[in-house]
């Protein structure tokens, strides 16, 4: 019967290792998805100069928004922290949506093939960013559940893991996309 004390020692140890590894896997997944969002946001920043050039000639009443977008991009290019990135993402999405909605008032702009292509690319990218945000939130929920629920919370406490914040999903994103290209 030598194995009984071994088992008494080994079983909790194995459980501990599983919980520990599970928590690390969850934390890494959050970081991984955040990395993807980061790449997509950079892609969006790359498109912005093109967008501004394309619409500047037409848009007369939206100077301020365009100005704001350009400034945000300039700041992001200098390198900002993850938290700032998250905060800026919301404002950026809002500003870009304003521009895209304003396009409806400029028929010449809507007729330009160049702009249409750009608009498609932007819509697509927004959809991908939105998907990445949702994936991030799902990963965070998984992680937060593990951090807060028994028994994983005990190990998480020992590893001093804290719950992470969700990405704010802009309200207009919960509804279906309204941009319409049918003419």
């Amino acid at each position, binding site marked *: 019967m030598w194995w009984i004390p071994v088992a008494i020692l080994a079983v909790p140890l194995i459980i501990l290792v599983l919980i520990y590894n599970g928590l690390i896997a969850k934390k890494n997944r959050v970081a991984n998805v955040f990395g993807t969002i980061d790449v997509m946001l950079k892609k969006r920043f790359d498109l912005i100069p093109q967008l501004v050039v394309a619409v500047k000639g037409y848009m007369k009443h939206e100077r301020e928004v365009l100005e704001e977008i350009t400034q945000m991009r300039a700041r992001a290019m200098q390198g900002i922290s993850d938290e700032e990135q998250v905060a800026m993402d919301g404002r950026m999405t809002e500003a870009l949506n304003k521009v895209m909605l304003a396009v409806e008032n400029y028929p010449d702009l809507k007729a330009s093939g160049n702009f249409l292509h750009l608009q498609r690319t932007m819509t697509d990218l927004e959809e991908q960013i939105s998907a990445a945000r949702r994936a991030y939130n799902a990963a965070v929920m*998984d992680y937060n559940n593990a951090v807060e629920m028994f028994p994983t919370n005990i190990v998480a406490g020992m590893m001093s893991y804290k719950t992470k914040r969700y990405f704010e999903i802009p309200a207009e994103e919960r509804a279906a996309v309204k941009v*319409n290209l049918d003419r």
Partner: protein
Amino acid sequence: MKTLDEFRAFYEGELMKDLRALEARRAGICRNLLILFVALALIVLVIGVALGMAGGPAAVFVPAVLSVVIGSLAAAFMTKGYKRDFKLRIIERIIRFVEPQLNYKPTGYIDRETFMMSRIFTTRPNRYKGDDLVSGTVGRTDMKFCELNAVHESGSGKNKHRVTIFKGLFFVADFHKDFRTKTVVLPDTAEKLFGRLGQKLQAMNVFRGSLIKLEDPEFERHFAVYGDDQIESRYILSPGLMERIVQFKVKTDRKIYLSFVASSVFVAVSYTRNLFEPRLFRTLLDFTPMQQYFEDVQLAVGIVDDLNLNTRIWSKE
């Protein structure tokens, strides 16, 4: 989309004449089948009585089986032309009525490779049958659908084991977004029964790829989603599309499976009855079966609108 009233007018104005002609044929076939049946029964009876006196009841078995085989072969032969004409004169016109630019091939079907490519079903069927292939462009979307019956048979003789992999309507269309990985949406059975534990079980289904937990609780109640890429699956299954899929599921009230592979969407809708087949032992001059054909076509063609496939605002043209 056409309304039921429009279809009723079409039925009364256009289909009726052909239906009367087909009804006469159907009645004739029924009469002939009855005669055949009586004749075969008499023969079996006579042989049975003759042999019964000589060799006991087991001797009746052979002529009985033989006459069943002959009878069903003859019935299939007699109804073949009728079925074909019915499909060309009625089903095809109903399909054209719903969407004029669609093509219809009564004996065509979506091939086994495409069926397997969808990744919805993991078992490869070795008995694969289908018919009623409809294809064409609805709005800006290329699509096709057909009726399929996919079965896996194993063993032989007494150990023969048949498993129906899928029976029903199979739909393929070009999806309006580009993507590289695969995403499969399956009816949710585990989560419905076991809740959170069910979700744990689903996550262990390693053959399917990783479980994608989506944020729409209504959608999650009906479906379990597996995919290769957490982000791309969410790119495909936008909140709007999830809502539409739930609505489609509620509307059809059937088991439905979806998958997104190679920039196409696959939809499988389970049916127990046969689709687009003519009735033989009941009159054709009845609106109810016609309404059923119409609704079946409408449902399949309507998937394009239901899933909003004609909206081309993303980078894919």
